[in-house]
């Protein structure tokens, strides 16, 4: 999974477990499965997305935190 987030220092949680900050997690290797992705930062609206990971496929996620939170998912 390729993740980019704004702000870059946002905290990333996978299934509720802290995974690190977004700037250090540009590429995340996950076993096939369904995961709850949460990206949060202080004073910003959290980003939540359910992601489905398949073997051999990369998932690109852009998480923009804020009142105008938008997401884009692309295979």
């Amino acid at each position, binding site marked *: 999974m390729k993740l980019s987030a704004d702000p870059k220092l946002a905290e990333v949680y996978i299934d509720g477990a802290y995974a690190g900050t977004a700037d250090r997690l540009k590429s995340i290797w996950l*076993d*096939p499965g369904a995961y709850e992705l949460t990206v949060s930062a202080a004073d910003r609206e959290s980003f939540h997305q359910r*992601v*489905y990971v*398949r*073997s*051999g496929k990369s998932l690109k996620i852009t998480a923009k935190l804020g009142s105008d939170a938008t997401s884009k998912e692309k295979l």
Partner: protein
Amino acid sequence: MSWKIGWAAVAVCVASLATAGPKGTVPRSSADRYAAHTVWDGVGIGVVVLSSERARKEFVSDVNRCCVVAEVALYPATDKALNVSLNDFVLRVKSSETSAKPASAGVIAARLQKKAGSDRDITVSPSVGVGYENAGYDPVTGTRGGGGMTRSAGVMVGIGGSGPKPASTDRDRAVMETELSEKGLPEGAAAAPVSGYVYFPIARKKNASLQLEYVLNGNKVVVALPQ
């Protein structure tokens, strides 16, 4: 003792609810917000058939390879719960005998896994060979030739590769089933609007006119779907 069993049952229920993923999609404000819609017996029905492009964006699973996906929203009549069942839907290609009932997430996932597994990775690459030919004996002059460089050109075809193909493993099938199930139209009693995707195992054809048939309270409601 019995209260312990009771608490254990409650704990199991809470745990199963906590681990269950979302179900369906978020219904729009009303049925007329969908490309095709109608109202019958106080029940609003909204339908949109996903284009290949949208299906590719909405799903990690390659649903375009197996079926036509429709997002269906149902708006129950006031104070009257609606029993939602996938068996009540049929997708029909107008002016033809082709029709299909929805397939379950498990069936679609198995079909996609089978298709992915049967894919063959074929790579074609040009190849050029350079070699040196040893000197040969000339029977006419009785002398040895000088030999020289030889060149050959061709195409290499490789079939297969190492490792499993995407979507071909059992774990991939399970992921696809989870995704299709979680995004699917929720079945059962609905007192509030519900929506979700319905998967019809039918080949997508360009310019084919489709219609969705829905059996509601014993009546067949037909919704023509725009191309």
